[in-house]
């Protein structure tokens, strides 16, 4: 998928003005937040259960493999190969598309059922498969809704159609399935189930992502509620796993710990309905399961984070809690971010994976309120990483000339206390004059852009320095 992150500001304007979207976001936003809070509280009712300790453990598990990622990958690879899987690597989206197409052609596949894979979004795999004459079918309900809406990109990593109302889905189903228009969510879900069931039974290849790769056993784990992850890895004769090189974890015990964190952080469930740990291929006497298993382990920018100040981002387990709790995401939705990953984790990943210069606004699309790092199950310091990206923009001379001159000027003045005192004294009076006796400024004279969508609070009266000097000389009011 080509990043559109450079158009963030323009898109935000559109999203804020989109009444339907705003209504949909308003309806959805508190659901995940409330569910997570409830799940954490319920978890802590048990003796000895401390969610903070769990987060710390999750962080340590992820750090352990990242610290020696090369050796852990080799260990996973050896074990997965021993069990009959074939491990391949892809540097970027184009290589993913080439490998998957080759595998499909090798096995004479003309239809592929897909469980959710964000990496296949990074690679725009569906378009590549279609171009090769292979029909890709998204089977996660949210992803399916978007696929039949002309391959619309997802707006949330675990609820891809987060931005859509049921009325919009009903319209889409009527148009695509040629059926009567449904009004209830249950009826629509059944209609999708019936449509997709035929595809599950007839497709000869399944593609999934991977929540984790378990080094000890050479397994991939999949976490779903719908059961589509199980379908695409049980029925077709070929299973292709596409996942990032950073997803490897040591042991099954570590997996158990992470599974106490992931569902609670994502949807507020104690556990997701279906958690699968898949190892190797179907045995000779088995009645179901794939005969061929391929792992495509993808870099696409990940290796360049290893050993840098941004390595902590690689701990991410893709739960979506950061975006659920982000006031910016809640207001503009996921599409404004312009690439696969929205919200705070997207504002870190998009510039790092697609180029800092191509996503200049994203690290600034944060109030740095810190809520994302408070809820992150693996304690990624997202606000610090966003600040780090802002610093990189300055170091790389990517900020606009007006901002650079303004900051240089401010620095020059700030180093001259008398001049600074005079400048702020004049500034405060100028702002008070603009406020014209009220407590807010509607058009900020020197920077009108600032007040285009909000008022600027008027200063109280005099500068801090004036008040402080007054108090020191005992003339305080």
């Amino acid at each position, binding site marked *: 998928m080509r990043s559109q992150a450079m158009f963030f500001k323009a898109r935000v304007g559109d999203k804020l003005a989109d009444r339907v979207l705003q209504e949909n976001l308003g*309806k959805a936003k508190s659901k995940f937040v409330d569910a997570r809070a409830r799940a954490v509280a319920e978890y802590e009712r048990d003796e000895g259960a401390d969610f903070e300790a769990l987060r710390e453990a999750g962080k340590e598990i992820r750090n352990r493999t990242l610290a020696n990622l090369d050796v852990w990958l080799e260990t996973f690879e050896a074990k997965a190969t021993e069990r009959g899987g074939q491990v391949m690597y892809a540097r970027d989206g184009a290589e993913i598309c080439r490998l998957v197409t080759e595998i499909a052609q090798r096995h004479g596949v003309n239809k592929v059922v897909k469980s959710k894979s964000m990496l296949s979004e990074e690679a725009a795999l569906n378009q590549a498969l279609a171009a090769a004459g292979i029909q890709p079918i998204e089977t996660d309900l949210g992803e399916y809704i978007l696929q039949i809406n002309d391959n619309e990109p997802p707006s949330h990593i675990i609820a891809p*159609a987060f931005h859509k109302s049921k009325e919009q889905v009903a319209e889409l189903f009527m148009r695509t399935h040629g059926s009567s228009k449904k009004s209830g969510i249950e009826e629509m879900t059944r209609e999708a189930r019936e449509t997709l069931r035929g595809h599950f039974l007839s497709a000869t290849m399944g593609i999934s992502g991977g929540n984790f790769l378990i080094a000890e056993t050479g397994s991939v784990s999949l976490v779903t509620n719908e059961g589509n992850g199980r379908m695409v890895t049980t029925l077709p004769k070929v299973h292709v796993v596409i996942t990032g090189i950073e997803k490897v974890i040591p042991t099954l015990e570590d997996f158990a710990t992470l599974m106490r964190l992931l569902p609670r952080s994502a949807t507020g469930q104690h556990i997701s309905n279906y958690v699968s740990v898949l190892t190797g291929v179907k045995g000779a006497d088995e009645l179901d399961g794939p005969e061929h298993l391929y792992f495509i382990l993808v870099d696409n920018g990940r290796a360049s984070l290893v050993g840098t100040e941004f390595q902590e981002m690689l701990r991410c387990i893709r739960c979506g809690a950061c975006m659920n709790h982000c006031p910016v995401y809640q207001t503009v939705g996921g599409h404004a971010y312009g690439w696969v990953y929205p919200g705070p984790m997207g504002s870190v990943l998009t510039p790092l994976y697609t180029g800092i210069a191509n996503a200049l606004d994203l690290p600034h699309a944060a109030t740095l309120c810190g809520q994302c790092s408070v809820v992150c199950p693996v304690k990624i310091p997202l606000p610090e990483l966003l600040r780090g990206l802002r610093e990189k923009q300055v170091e790389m001379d990517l900020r606009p000339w007006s901002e650079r001159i303004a900051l240089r000027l401010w620095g020059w003045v700030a180093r001259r206390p008398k001049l600074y005192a005079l400048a702020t004294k004049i500034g405060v009076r100028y702002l008070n004059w603009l406020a014209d006796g009220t407590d807010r400024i509607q058009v900020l004279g020197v920077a009108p852009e600032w007040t285009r969508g909000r008022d600027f609070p008027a200063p109280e009266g005099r500068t801090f320095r004036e008040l402080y000097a007054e108090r020191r000389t005992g003339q305080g009011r």
Partner: protein
Amino acid sequence: MDAREDILFRVRVALGRTDANRPAAAADVQAAFAARSQGPRPQLGADLLARFRHESGVQSSSVDEVATLDEVPAAVARYLAERQLPQRAVVWPKYAALPWAQAGLAVEARAAQGDDAVGITGCFCAIAETGTLMTCSAPDTPAATSLLPETHIAIVPLSRIVAGMEDGWALARAELGELPRAVNFISGPSRTGDIEQTIVIGAHGPYRVHLILVRDC
């Protein structure tokens, strides 16, 4: 350079990998496998059965209890009749020999197909902490039986209820050696919240999960 070498090369450079520090990294891998240390776990107390029953309810599974395996078919027939579901099912070959016909059920032991209405399975063990079934695939315990039919009925011996997922892994290592192709943890019927974050039961998998606890087996 091929993709594998290229990616691993860059990771090694980024980590400062040398011949000198490689043994320490390999030792950390071996140490992790040897220790298999567990993270923080909730203490569930002694009554795992009560916890399992409660959590199964949270997951929207229904629960019945019988004394012996031979009573299972009648319990299945009763459940299906109460819900006006067809008295026919596909069952794990592992349980082919139970007295199904005596209970008036037409049960076939084979791989599940897309139009089977009821699937009957057992479980490798069951996890009290979350009301979860742990199933392991094998020739006589195929995976699709718990997935394709609209109704999934599972036999759960009380002796196989363990506290947490870690205990399930320990059992698997002890009894199976290495992991089977598919270990599936199943917690209630399939569901989705993808339209307006409203939970709907019965996405792609079963609409109903019914657990039959068996006291003596």
